[in-house]
């Protein structure tokens, strides 16, 4: 069959054309992308919650563990 001849001959074309058209394989890393997105969202939520000022403190700077350098709290 003539079509089969074209299909077979096409199989032997230059490697550069075969490599250029190689389909992009994304599936394998799909789950990593979702896990990374979820982790980033979780960090934003947790970080945001920790940074919100309340009646008892004024966010991170008011907490002893985070008060460093020129912002260090006076003890007593």
């Amino acid at each position, binding site marked *: 069959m003539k079509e089969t001849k074209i299909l077979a001959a096409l199989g032997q074309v230059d490697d550069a054309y075969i490599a250029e058209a190689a*389909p992009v394989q994304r599936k394998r890393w799909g789950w990593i992308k979702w896990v990374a997105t979820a982790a980033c969202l979780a960090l934003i939520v947790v970080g945001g919650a920790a940074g919100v000022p309340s009646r008892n403190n004024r966010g991170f700077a008011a907490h002893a563990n985070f008060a460093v350098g020129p912002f260090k709290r006076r003890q007593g």
Partner: protein
Amino acid sequence: MDDQQIISLFWARAEDAVAETARQYGRYCHAIAYNILRSREDSEECVNDTWLRAWESMPPHHPERLDTFLGKITRNLALNRWEKSAAGKRGGGQVEVALEELQDCLPTAEIIEQAVDSMALTAALNRFLASLPSETRRIFMQRYWYLRSIKAIAAELGANESKVKMTLLRARGKLKQILEEEGISL
């Protein structure tokens, strides 16, 4: 491990060669076979046959690119398998078997003539591909080398299906023109 290191393993007849090849190019070759055969089991067999062929052909071969070298083997094997199964459905398998047996009777001159025709056709296809814009060439190759669906090609390129179909139609027209101009008869 890069291609040349894997090829060195083949040349050294190290068994790791097949395992490393399967790890790096298993999915690539499986995708090629699956596009043609649409059967997971047949595709796996085809890929395993590819490793065997690679083992048998290196040495003496020392390909510059391992991906396309393996891809070509897989594509050939998958197309042969597909052809046999299509022929089997048409003629209960016996016609195909009989034709294959009769191929042994072909005179050597005719086999050489067929090979020369095939080489001339491949050379014309190379010229045709070189004349295409990059995107058109990718679409053409994805369709007729990788045997991908129009839908899959459109999705990967972020284009709609009608654009892909139109591009292929024009490319086929151009190929027909080139083959006629070069006097290549099929």
